[in-house]
């Protein structure tokens, strides 16, 4: 399953360590929320990067205290139609200021890339190779956005108002 | 006519067929005995047991490109062998609306 970052397929620096398996001595790891919370300090003591896979049906509260020390958070789309991770992503970025890697996992398909980018995801475990290859073009599908999210894009409303200001300023 | 979209168990009330809609234009189609589809009810493969129905439905569902929403529906087989729709819903699907088109 290709990983996409910065709009292109890239090597995944993180190793997903299944529950029960020993943590490798070095290298970035992704562990489940359950495992992480059993002994977060022990896991974070590792020199290498730690990421947590957070389920989409669990509040972020228990994760928030550790965000500053996490290199990555992976959120889950069990089905592309289950949109809970979009809320989680926005809360992580916009409310809790998380600036590490925010990864989309699960049924990650082409036609949700733009929504995911807008919600704050910057890494994507893409189901299909063809979708991963099309990421860059897909991300450019839309140039107009009506509502503000944490992605910094100016909304249509504000673009209009800016236009009007500059028009009248130019007079 | 309870929507067959809610079908889970396969239990035949009598002779049945598998029907769906053609993906590209939505036209009503019937699964034939030749692993294909026809827009004519008379070409529909008739099944009489749950197993036969399950097999036919599985085969129909596998054609995801050509057809959508396949399900098992009842038919009436007349003495001469002619196949008629088995309920009002299938009657409407094969014959059209029970009301006149406005245009």
């Amino acid at each position, binding site marked *: 399953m290709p990983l996409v970052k910065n709009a292109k397929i890239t090597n995944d620096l993180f190793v997903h360590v299944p529950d029960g398996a020993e943590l490798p001595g070095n290298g970035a790891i992704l562990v489940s929320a359950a495992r992480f919370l059993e002994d977060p300090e022990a896991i974070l003591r590792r020199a290498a990067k730690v990421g947590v896979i957070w389920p989409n049906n669990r509040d972020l509260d228990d994760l928030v205290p550790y965000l500053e020390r996490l290199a990555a958070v992976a959120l889950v789309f069990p089905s*592309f*139609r*289950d*949109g*809970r991770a*979009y*809320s*989680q992503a*926005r809360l992580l970025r916009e409310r809790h200021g998380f600036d590490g890697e925010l990864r989309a996992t699960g049924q990650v*398909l082409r*036609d949700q890339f*733009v*929504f*995911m980018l*807008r*919600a704050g995801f910057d890494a994507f475990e893409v189901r299909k190779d*063809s979708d991963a290859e099309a990421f860059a073009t897909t991300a450019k*599908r*839309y*140039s*107009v*956005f*009506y*509502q*503000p*999210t944490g992605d910094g894009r100016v*909304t*249509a*409303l504000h*673009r*209009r*108002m800016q236009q*009007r200001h500059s028009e009248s300023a130019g007079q | *006519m*309870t*929507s067959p*979209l809610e079908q889970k168990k396969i239990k035949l009330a009598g002779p049945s067929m598998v029907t769906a*809609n053609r*993906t*590209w*234009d*939505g*036209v*009503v189609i019937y699964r034939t005995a030749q692993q294909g589809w026809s827009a004519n009810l008379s070409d529909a493969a008739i099944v009489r047991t749950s197993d036969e129905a399950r097999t036919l439905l599985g085969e129909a569902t596998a054609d*995801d*490109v050509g057809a*959508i*929403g396949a399900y098992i529906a009842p038919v009436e087989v007349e003495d001469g062998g002619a196949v008629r729709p088995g*309920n*009002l*819903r299938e009657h*409407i*699907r094969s014959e*059209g*609306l*029970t*009301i006149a*088109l*406005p*245009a």
Partner: protein
Amino acid sequence: MYAYDELDRTLINERVSEFRDQVKRRLSGELTEDEFKMLRLQNGVYLQLHAYMFRVAIPYGTLSSKQLRALAHVARKYDRGYGHFTTRQNIQFNWIKLAELPDALADLAEVGIHAMQTSGNNTRNVTSDQWAGVAPGEVEDPRIWSELLRQYTTLHPEFSFLPRKFKFAITASDHDRAAIKIHDIGLRLYKNAEGATGFEVLVGGGLGRTPFIGKTIKPFVHGRDILSYVEAILRVYNQYGRRDNIYKARIKILVHELGIEKFAHEVEEEWQQMRDSALTLDDSVIEEIRSRFSYPAYERLAHMPDELKKAAHDPKFEAWRRNSVFTHKVQGYSIVTLSLKPVGGPPGDATAEQMDAIADLADKYSFGEIRVGHEQNLVLPHVARRDLPVLWKALDKIGVATPNINLVSDIIACPGLDYCSLANARSIPIAQELTRRFANHDTANLIGRLHINISGCINACGHHHVGHIGILGVEKNGEEFYQITIGGRADEDAQMGTLIGPAVPYGEVADVIEDIVEAYLALRARPDELFVDTVKRLGVEPFRERVYATR
């Protein structure tokens, strides 16, 4: 009318390109139906019994004549020459081909029409009062706020995959013509004691299998906070709405299971953390949207022009005028309702020819504007009273002047089993027969205001729960049966109707309705006691007795 600018049009065009690509990938097999279905729903494309159905958005029920002509064009070019106006102010085409949809959408995009989010588990058309902007006594035009909400909810990245569909309605009048109490979020616009504009916010209304009247979650949300407050509600719903059972996935179930106080508390907690954000609407933003709405340059006209005085001699004209013409907030003008409920016809349908003709009449007599009401009729909102006689002649010629607005034959019906794959029973032929039984206008006027709503299944797209008389199609042993309820209301006194007895077979429904009406005429305290008030006063029993005495 809101004027779409380059940005709005760019978004619609980008959406069309995206859907064109998605259809291509579906037809090539690159996308499975399982992956595609939600995408096509998000563009208003359903599968019905014998074809696809295409639901086009008419934001808050407002159309320009140019847009109505484009709808006629789609009906002619891609469909079978007609369209159906829905209980959510949208229009549906019933015979569309998937392969041609991107072209149809492209044609519509040229006039600023789209089908974004008219289906799927997302936020749907923000409906409003079809008399918005022209109703006397209105606080202010609710469509400004509908447009703000429409933009806010369109392609919202966080809320495009909700547990289930989500519907908004806004009213700004004392008499609620938008049925806000049966919506997921209902907004009542008003000015508080300090003169500030804001909303009473209701949540959790809805019909279907488990009908609920919406509950007030917050009595006053300031206009500037409405988007952030709505975002808080949607976020709580997105996270906690049930996803395990589609029959329990609407917000009304979450509100019911938590209780309104707890739900309000959850929303308030969320809102307090994000209320002062980019979503706060300052005056300049509201003014920006308001400035894009254009209003007619009304003339100063007499209330009783000569043309009207002369036409008063024509009883047919007068019958229509008294029934279908309503008071406008500007003197000398009227609000005219066009009946899409001809005797013997399917309710809410219009042919391409009718649409073109109505567009021309709108240009001549209504400043180019048409409205769609959730009762499935059309409205010309700015007609000068002096033009009423000549307009009437033209409307009568094209068959949209049946003087039955709000009367027993002004029936609201879903498409039912003739079209819909969810249906248990047919609804259109029932409606048609009822219009024939009550075709006599004197009788209909004698009966007075009486709303009949027909749904072909429990999903209640015909809003039968809130009909004065509600008719629900069910299936019994392969036969079509109908449950009858009475006493429902959809307005500010919204309530569900009460079942009068066991379901009756298809062939008897019209007789039963006649019996109910007869009972009402016999039981009413005065000629002007409305049906729904007689039911309130006497309860269901006297009606039940009369209907089931011989059945």
